[in-house]
């Protein structure tokens, strides 16, 4: 547990900016295949991101929240989970939920305005949460229910630095402390909540220290170092699953990182932040660092990287193809899944709507 029980402003770090293991740091016990998979998922995430942004620019998709720069935190943390552990995401965790087998096509479908992308049937993933911090109490409730059912699953909830200002952050973490739920609260502190910088979001020196208010551990980690993130998350998972004596199960992890791109495709970050700042953080690119480390370890070389590059390009291209070739959702879907049994009023509205469509045809209605 010692990784977690530390001064909240001592950051857990393993790789330095050049991908070298820092003095005194221990690399977590991950086999080659896992390390390569983490690398591949980060690369996939980055590439997906770029393609998604360009789809939006071409009018093939609505607003999209890119995640470049944040792959290390997502992939590192998701890999620390067991298959049946849950992820409760915000709206930016495209790479993390991919780790739970949510296909890229589904993610695209959601951002193309189709609820079916939010279904993720059978996967231990909760739907994307757009209203900030509202998923945090849900995550606590899911973990609590699982604990009441005597399972040993862990529930990892993602949110941003801005989310920590919302009442729901406070209430969700406080409940987790009181009911000692198997919860990990993972803050992707990417320094910005749209245009509001981290230091205007709260006067506390770190976000990790906010755990003090709830009686459990808070820890800061280099969020652009996938190995450090993995390590911290794995320790938190361990503690949540098998708490050590009276140690509380929940943990707040603050993963310090940076969003390289815009908040969403509707945002223009040049209005509120300097390119220099962005460039400085780009020196810590999680992909470069892991790549350098894996090269140095002899796990990756040019050839394998090229293969990976080809594979991920294909995978993303296929996902886009799949998402775009999916039939548009049936307009009748508006009236479905409102309740288990459709009440008469909604049935009547649906019938009137179908008559309207018959009368005018979709073209006229949508013009």
């Amino acid at each position: 547990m010692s990784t977690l029980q530390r001064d909240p402003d001592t950051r857990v770090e393993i790789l330095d900016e050049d991908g070298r293991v820092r003095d005194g740091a221990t690399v977590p016990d991950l086999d080659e295949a896992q390390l390569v998979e983490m690398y591949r998922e980060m690369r996939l995430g980055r590439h997906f991101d770029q393609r998604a942004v360009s789809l939006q620019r071409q009018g093939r998709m609505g607003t999209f929240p890119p995640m470049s720069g944040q792959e290390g935190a997502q992939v590192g943390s998701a890999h620390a989970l067991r298959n049946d552990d849950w992820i409760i995401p915000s709206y930016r965790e495209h790479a993390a939920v991919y780790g739970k087998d949510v296909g890229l096509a589904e993610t695209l479908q959601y951002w193309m305005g189709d609820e079916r992308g939010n279904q993720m049937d059978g996967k231990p993933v909760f739907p994307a949460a757009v209203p900030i911090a509202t998923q945090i109490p849900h995550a606590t409730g899911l973990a609590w229910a699982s604990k009441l059912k005597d399972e040993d699953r862990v529930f990892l909830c993602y949110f941003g630095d801005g989310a920590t200002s919302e009442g729901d952050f406070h209430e969700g973490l406080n409940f987790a402390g009181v009911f000692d739920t198997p919860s990990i609260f993972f803050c992707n502190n990417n320094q910005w909540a749209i245009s509001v910088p981290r230091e205007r979001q709260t006067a506390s020196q770190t976000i990790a220290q906010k755990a003090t208010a709830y009686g459990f551990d808070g820890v800061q980690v280099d969020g652009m170092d996938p190995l450090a993130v993995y390590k911290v998350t794995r320790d938190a998972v361990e503690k949540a699953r098998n708490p050590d004596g009276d140690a509380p199960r929940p943990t707040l992890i603050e993963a310090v990182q940076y969003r390289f791109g815009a908040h969403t495709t509707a945002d223009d970050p040049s209005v509120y932040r300097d390119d220099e700042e962005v460039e400085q953080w780009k020196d810590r690119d999680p992909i470069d660092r892991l790549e350098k480390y894996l090269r140095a370890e002899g796990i990756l070389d040019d050839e394998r990287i090229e293969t990976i590059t080809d594979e991920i390009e294909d995978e993303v291209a296929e996902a886009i193809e799949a998402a775009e070739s999916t039939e548009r959702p049936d307009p009748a879907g508006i009236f479905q899944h409102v309740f288990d049994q459709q009440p008469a009023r909604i049935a009547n509205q649906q019938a009137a709507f179908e008559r309207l469509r018959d009368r005018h045809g979709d073209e006229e209605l949508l013009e």
Partner: protein
Amino acid sequence: MSANDTTETDDLTLVQAVRDGLYGEMDRDDEVIVMGEDVGKNGGVFRATEGLYEEFGNDRVIDTPLAESGIVGTAIGMAAYGLKPVPEIQFMGFIYPAFDQIVSHAARIRTRSRGRFTCPMVVRAPYGGGIRAPEHHSESKEAFFVHEPGLKVVVPSTPRDAKGLLAASIRDPDPVVFLEPKLIYRAFRGDVPTEPYTTPLGEAAVRREGSDVSVFTWGAMAQQTVEAADQLAGEIDVEVVDLRTLSPLDTDAIVESFKKTGRAAVVHEAPKTGGLAGEITATIQEEALLYQEAPIKRITGFDTPFPLYALEDYYLPEPARIKDGIREVVEF
């Protein structure tokens, strides 16, 4: 499975019937969980959960921290995970911190996950005025919840209905806001079948048959309205329809009664503007304008904040005001 005459019954107040309903559902289904402020050892500030903690233990009857959004938000997570939480909000006036979780999440999780996740949760809250309570303890804002698609809204007005509607709400696979008229929590007793049973959601009940005018109402106002109607007997033959479920509305029952009488009033405690009387009026004139012989009268609370208790009895519709309103409709 509705109760019939040979069933064993108890003579209970409305709040006792709520408690009895909770007990019955917890007993038959381990997934039912009661949670909220002071619902455990204290048995609820109105004693609606009395004895449940002792019976079912603190894993199923849970005293929570003082945080309504946390209560409903975690309950949504529990419900999505297969439990059937019944969170209590201590007074309706304190439901607003949880409003976002109710309208943005409980109401939408089924739709937005295309049926994968559901929210079989019942948010219970005592509501309404008339008990000399402190500020913020007397409001009636059922209309807020009726306007949110994906929620059901249920209001019992008798002990028997309280138990049956609560059981139906708990067994319902969708989220229900269950509002309990606290003015009549202990105002009278009634026969309540001992065994669990359900009273179907979405069905109004005719509390008093009549041919001159239909009065639609619910909650504590159902009693006031029946009283007014009884006082008018001989002069005007009033039909009183207790809607019981406010969402989905029993449009058929409303329209059927109206077609018979051609005249109507709606009685509710909530402020007039934006209250459900407007919805009911609009529904009637959409479906049965040709039967309408007089304006539909809204006999409601005023468009003012609910006053502190020294004046609350002036705010609430009572028999005199209801009778005058009904006369106006009939004399038009």
